[in-house]
């Protein structure tokens, strides 16, 4: 039955005039959109703790641990599947992992990044930005309040480190001189655009800003997404910008959205990253009790499992992506083409609790 009511269009316009006026006058309820999440998290933690404390609970936790994860996982990180070295932070400090699996604890630092050629490390601790060599020896320090998220770019002779401190984005030269404020910014790691010019992307609430630090000009301010930006990242060729939030991910090219992902409320994305040799965007989708890693632009699911996957870290050559899987206490290296899986167990025992990949550098 298909028909049009006479004057349907006119009726629509009359109704829109009334309804849009009502919408404009409405006062949204002042209730943070994600307010339930901390409550749910607290409830879940309380339930898990209560369950784990009882003898039957301990037994259940053990059996769940056994059931989750890849059974054939290596019992230690014997080697990385491809070239490069890892920086890993955890409650126990900052670790540098060589391709042969050997690792060195650099000290108690929070966030860290490699220099452009992997020769040095910039890291943060309580009130200092610190430059280190790979043996952990301090080259210089800069006292700033609660510095976070260093990002290092440049050539062998001229480099810059962007970082956040006191709600502001700052830039300092690779030798620790010339520190200055660039702009107000949200507490999200800034990202340098690969390429000859020193162009930086950073988060500003629900938008991302692309800023040319040499010219001091804003090149792009993305339209706001429905929630605060949680991550910005560039593709390896520097042509595409990823702007990530759990319920709204956008990929920009020349200022225009070329890919996007808006998970429903029943699900959320926990991370996204450029991966694969062609630099597509992979994301982690958490739904109910399981997670999977998928390509936002479509294609086969890369990897799925029970529990929470927290982070995606692409290898420098783009061939592999590391999926951190705290529920299983494992890391899973997934080769993006001709899929291959290499799993490593007992991550907390090797690096400490809440292990996080800070950087994977350099091919």
């Amino acid at each position: 039955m298909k028909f049009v009511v006479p004057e349907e269009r006119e009726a629509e316009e009359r109704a829109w005039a009334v309804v849009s006026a009502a919408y404009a006058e409405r006062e949204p309820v002042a209730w943070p959109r994600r307010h339930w999440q901390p409550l749910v998290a607290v409830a879940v933690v309380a339930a898990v703790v209560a369950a784990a404390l009882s003898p039957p609970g301990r037994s259940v936790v053990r059996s769940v641990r056994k059931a989750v994860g890849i059974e054939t996982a290596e019992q230690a990180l014997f080697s990385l599947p491809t070239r490069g070295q890892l920086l890993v932070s955890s409650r126990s400090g900052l670790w540098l992992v060589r391709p042969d699996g050997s690792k060195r604890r650099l000290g108690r630092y929070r966030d860290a990044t490699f220099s452009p050629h992997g020769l040095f490390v910039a890291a943060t601790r309580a009130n200092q930005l610190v430059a280190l060599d790979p043996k952990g020896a301090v080259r210089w320090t800069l006292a700033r309040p609660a510095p976070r998220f260093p990002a290092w770019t440049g050539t062998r002779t001229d480099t810059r480190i962007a970082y956040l401190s006191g709600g502001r984005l700052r830039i300092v030269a690779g030798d620790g001189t010339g520190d200055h404020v660039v702009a107000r910014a949200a507490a999200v790691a800034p990202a340098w655009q690969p390429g000859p010019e020193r162009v930086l992307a950073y988060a500003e609430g629900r938008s991302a800003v692309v800023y040319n630090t040499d010219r001091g000009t804003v090149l792009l301010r993305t339209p706001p997404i429905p929630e605060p930006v949680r991550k910005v990242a560039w593709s390896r060729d520097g042509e595409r910008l990823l702007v990530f939030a759990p319920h709204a991910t956008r990929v920009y090219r020349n200022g225009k959205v070329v890919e996007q992902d808006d998970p429903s409320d029943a699900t959320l994305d926990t991370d996204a990253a450029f991966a694969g040799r062609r630099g597509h965007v992979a994301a982690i989708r958490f739904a109910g009790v399981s997670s999977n890693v998928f390509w936002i632009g479509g294609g086969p699911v890369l990897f799925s499992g029970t529990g929470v996957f927290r982070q995606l870290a692409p290898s420098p050559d783009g061939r592999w992506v590391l999926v951190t899987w705290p529920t299983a206490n494992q890391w899973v290296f997934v080769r993006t083409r001709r899929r291959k899986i290499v799993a490593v167990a007992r991550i907390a025992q090797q690096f400490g609790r809440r292990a996080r990949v800070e950087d994977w550098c350099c091919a």
Partner: protein
Amino acid sequence: MAGTGRDERAWVRRAQAGSASDFEALFRAHWGPAYRAAYLVVRDAAAAEDIAQEAFLAAVRALDRFDRRRPFGPWLHRIVVNRAIDWARARALRAEGEAVDVAAPEQRERDDELLRELGRLSPEHRAVIVLRYLLDYTPGEIAELLELPRGTVNSRLRRGLDALKERLE
């Protein structure tokens, strides 16, 4: 044209956050089906406009409480159809004559006849037929929308269609 489920959830989310353009997208996607559904139940264009408009105003008032996991369309249609049934019942109590036939002259004669006969069914029978054949809801979904037992929906559909068939023959 209604958007995909993903579009719709995004529109609702952004409309809740204050995006007028997303609220307009939601309105534009759902106005036509809502208005037509109301019209088919009440058989009065002015009343259908009021009913659909009232349903959208109710949507504005309830927007912040709307559960975004649920689709917007069925929720709106439920308001529309229930209000339309109430309106049609009230009109019957006022002993008004049949609704003015405002079918467009270019519509096919057969459609005119079908719509006219549809208008002679009781509001309850009209509602389930409109939901089933105009808005493409399944009997299970209609039962949920109108809070009726599924058997009642099926019997109203059957009886409504039988009555239509009889009158059209």
